[in-house]
Structures are given as structure tokens and as C-alpha cells.
């Protein structure tokens, strides 16, 4: 199955306006020239490499700056095709407010069945063919609660440029959009149409939570309105704003990150995948985890035949003669 990565660099050039703790590392880059931390480059390499090994070709949507950056690093060869025209010409969107718009709007270019992978989503096994029998597939669902999820009243109070969508169900699960499979272009069109409508804020202030509504929230709405049966890589459901609890804190009522619904298919969990996602937030607080994970990504790329993508001098600090040979 063909996959796509999307790297839209425009949000970087508005980094002082990027909101949320997830962008701490980007805001801290002391440069007006495009750059990303090593660990982000490494998980990008790993994501593309591992997909290509077991699941199929992978294409890249980026812009001239992103293309140049990947060429400089010697990683442009990871991709079967690279499209820079679409994102170079993406206009009429505020990249700081809607920083995932590049990826969402790029989806519409694909008319044949495909998988979208966030660059921090690493699939280590072959996805079973049965997964692709549905019109749509996602990594997993999320239980919406907390900061990024809204009530109807909140929307009506804080969003000026459009009305609360009819039938929108704020209590229903939200699809995580780091891994998406589409085999029906009609669903892509409905999703992107809604997204495009939502991002035209006419300069009005929008609260930080709104970007997620234009990304995950509205896809859930499209799924329910169209009654599109949706496959998942795992039946585990992520609980937003959880207590990071575990089996031993269960007895005190602390919530955990993941839950199974009443009926679920545990066999799905044999497929190994990793979404770096939450760790990116923790990296800012735990330098040791960041260091270890960065080295782990490097080692795995090396082990799976990707050493040619690690030749840039900025990766030399992760190289170890004993572990990696000459």
C-alpha cells in the first residue's frame, strides 16, 4: 500500500505564534532558518524506512524549503516521489493557527487508496490486507475530554467565523489522525471540504483548541455523518487528559492512557507500531528520555539498512564504532 508523508515548513516561519506545549522544541530553535531537532529527523527516516521495508512505497509532500532540507541531509532518497508544487502554492491559511492544514489539504491529491503517516508514526509490521477492506482506517480512537475538546456552548461563545456544525457530537470518539487510510476519495473530499471551511477565520481570534477540531474532530463528524465503517490498527482507545495511571494506581481511581471497549480484538495488538507523539511533550521535561530515544531511532535505522541516510555530519555524534561498525 502506498503511503505519504507531509512536511509543510510554513508553520516553522511563524513559530513565535505557534501555541501549545508540543511546540516547545520548535520555539526553542534559535534560528530563523528552517531546522528541526535531530530526533525528529531520525524518526522521519525511521517511519519512511520501516514502511518501505514491509508495506510499500512512500511519497513525500513538502515545499521547496523542506525539499532542500531533506536533500541537504541526504534523506530525499527515502521517497519514491516528492511533490513540492502543492504545498508551495498553499495559500489562504494561517500556518500558526492551523499547522496541520498542509497535511490535511495534501490528502486531496491522492485519488487511489493510500495511507497517510505522520512522520513520527513508525509501523514495524506488515499491515494485514483485511485492514484495507474498509473505506477508511485510523490508528485508534480517542475519548475526548479536557483542554482540546469543547462543548457546543464553548464553540458558540468562542468561534465567530462559523456556526457549530449540525449533528456534531461532542461526546463521540475522535479519530487520531496520525495514521489514516482512505480508499474512497469521496471521504477525503468531505473531510477536506469541512477543514477548508473551518480554517477561513477571516482574521478572527480562534482559541488554541480549535485546530484539533479542524483536524481530528471534523473527521469524526464526517465518519458519523457518512456512516463510514472505520478500521483501527488497535482497538485500544486513548483517553485525553488522563492521569498517566497504571495497574498499581488503579485502586486509587487514577485514569490510564489507554482503554479497551467492552468488545475488542486483542489480535490487532500483535501489529507493532509506535507513535512518538506524547513522548515529544515529555522530551522537553526529560532530557535523558530524549537522549535515549534519539539514539534508539538512530540504532534502529542503522540495523534496518538505513545507514546511507545517516551520513550527514550532524548524526556523527550518535555513531559508535563498536555498535555500528565502520
Amino acid at each position, binding site marked *: 500500500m502506498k503511503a505519504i508523508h507531509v512536511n509543510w515548513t510554513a508553520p516553522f516561519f511563524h513559530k513565535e505564534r505557534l501555541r501549545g506545549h508540543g511546540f516547545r522544541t520548535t520555539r526553542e530553535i534559535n534560528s530563523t*532558518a*528552517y531546522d528541526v531537532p535531530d530526533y525528529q529527523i531520525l524518526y522521519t527516516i525511521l517511519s519512511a524506512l520501516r514502511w518501505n521495508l514491509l508495506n510499500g512505497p512512500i511519497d513525500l509532500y513538502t*515545499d521547496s524549503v523542506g*525539499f*532542500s532540507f531533506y536533500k541537504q541531509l541526504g534523506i530525499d532518497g527515502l521517497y519514491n516521489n516528492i511533490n*513540492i508544487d502543492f504545498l508551495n502554492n498553499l495559500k489562504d491559511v494561517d500556518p500558526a493557527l492551523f499547522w496541520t492544514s498542509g497535511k490535511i489539504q495534501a490528502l486531496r491529491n491522492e485519488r487511489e487508496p493510500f495511507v497517510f503517516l505522520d512522520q513520527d508514526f513508525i509501523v514495524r509490521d506488515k499491515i494485514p490486507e483485511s485492514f484495507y477492506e474498509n473505506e477508511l482506517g485510523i490508528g485508534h480512537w480517542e475519548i475526548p475530554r479536557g483542554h482540546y475538546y469543547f462543548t457546543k456552548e464553548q464553540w458558540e461563545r468562542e468561534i465567530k467565523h462559523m456556526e457549530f456544525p449540525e449533528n456534531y457530537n461532542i461526546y463521540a470518539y475522535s479519530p487520531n489522525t496520525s495514521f489514516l487510510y482512505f480508499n474512497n476519495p469521496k471521504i477525503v473530499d468531505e473531510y477536506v471540504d469541512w477543514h477548508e471551511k473551518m480554517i477561513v477565520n477571516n482574521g478572527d481570534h480562534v482559541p488554541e483548541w480549535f485546530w484539533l477540531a479542524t483536524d481530528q474532530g471534523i473527521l469524526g463528524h464526517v465518519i458519523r455523518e457518512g456512516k463510514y465503517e472505520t478500521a483501527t490498527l488497535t482497538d485500544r482507545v486513548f483517553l485525553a487528559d488522563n492521569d498517566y495511571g497504571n495497574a498499581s494506581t488503579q485502586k486509587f481511581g487514577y485514569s490510564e492512557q489507554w482503554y479497551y471497549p467492552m468488545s475488542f480484538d486483542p489480535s490487532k495488538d500483535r501489529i507493532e507500531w509506535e507513535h512518538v507523539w506524547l513522548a515529544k511533550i515529555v522530551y522537553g521535561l526529560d532530557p535523558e528520555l530524549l537522549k535515549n530515544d534519539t539514539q534508539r531511532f538512530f540504532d534502529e535505522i542503522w540495523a534496518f539498512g538505513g545507514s546511507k541516510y545517516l551520513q550527514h555530519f550532524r548524526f556523527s555524534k550518535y555513531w559508535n564504532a563498536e555498535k555500528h561498525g565502520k
Partner: protein
Amino acid sequence: MENKIVIVRALWGSTERALNEVFSKPVFSNEVVYVWGLENQQMLIERGFKTVLMGEGSTEPEYSTVLLQYYHKLAVIERAGKDYPEYIFLDWDCYLLRPLDDYFYQTLREGNDVQVTLYAYDDKPYIGIPELILCKGNERYNNSIPEDLANYIVGQEIQLRKYSWKHENLLVSPNFCFFYSRRPGIASELIQIAKKNKVENCVEEHAMFLWANCTMDEFIEKYEPKVLQGTSDDTRIFMHLYDYENDPVIKINKYILQRVNKTIYFKHI
């Protein structure tokens, strides 16, 4: 990316290294490659590049030696100067770091009609290059430099000592990774100067040094572009030989930055 000033590139030769540097598609909407070799041209066309064929063979016979190969760059800007009133010549290893905005064009157009940046070598025997190649951890050449490369390094040292400014313990030279011009006939002047002086090695850089005919400070004031560095701070090609403060890259960039306020759009590795 739409660009208001044409980006000009050069491709000659058929070495793996030269061909590997070529992008798999144009970075800019207004980008032209002046190319030697029918096969090279075909490869570029297949990748979507606009091309101008400079010769059917992969090099110009007159410049087909390791010591004269950079005449190709001068031949390219000579032709580009006839095709376009204003252009930016860009090496393939000069990478875009940010969108080319109005400030970029304004900065270039308010500056001199010719703009070239500077870089520096260490003022040491063999300008430090054999140390770089033979240093621990770089076994690329198995501690034995190929004859062509050795000849090039020896020649480069001789040429550079003639065509550079001595500054502290550095030999400072124009760097032709980026060349902006809206000056008619500049390339012909550079070629004439190079030939008259029998210049070799980094022919285009030495010719630029001779053409400018000024002190280093005057060069910086007149010709140093505000949009890139000759070699980027974070590239530091000699980084395993020098601590940060003593690295020739850092030293010359620091000196220039004290005199020219830069917004960096390209990184030259």
C-alpha cells in the same frame, strides 16, 4: 517556489559525486541548468529542469582537467548574463533555508550589481586539507590521497596564497557558491582575467579576487551579500580539527558579521 530572479545552476562531468548533488526536481519555479553532456541534459529534463545545453560532451574540452574544471562556472555565468539581465548562480550544495521573500530581493537589489561571499582556509601547509582527509575517523581515502586530489591540493595552496587576503592566520577568498549579478559583461571580464593570469584550481574565485582588486574590508563592504555565508557556521568542515573559536569558518563568519547584518536564506555546506 516562485522566484523573481532566475536561479542558474551548472552541471558538467559525469562523476558520481557531481550527479548525486543534483536535486530530483527543481527547487524553484524559475531555475535553469546550463549543462554539458547529452546524457546529463536528458537526466535533467526527465527530472523537470529547464536546461541549456552548453556542449554535447560532458565537459568542455578546454576545461577538462581537475585544475581547470571551474572555468565551467564562468562559462555558465557568461551565457546566463546574455540570457538574463539579472540572475543568481547557485551551487548544488547551496540549500534553501527559508522562502525567498520581498526582503531577499530588496536586499540584493539595493546592494552592489555583483555580490559574492567570502570564506577562509587555514594559513598552514597544504591549507590544512591533508590533515582533514587523513585525520582519525576519516578513512575514506585509506590514509592515501588519490594523485588527482593531491595535485589539486598542492595547486590550490599555491594559487590561494596568490589570490587571497591574509587575515590573522587565515587565507580569505571569494566563494563562488552564490553569485548575484545584474552587471552586463562581468563573466567575460572574469574569464579574461583568469586566462591572462593563467589561474588554476578555484578559477572563478581567484578571478573574482583579481577583478575586485581591493582590500578584504573593501570587498566585504562592496560585494558581500546579506543573504548567506560562504560556509555556514554549523557546517564547520574543519570541526574535528579546531575548537569552535579557532575554526576558520567561525572566525571569518564572525568577522564579516561584525560588518554586515545578514538574514540567511541559503546554507552552503
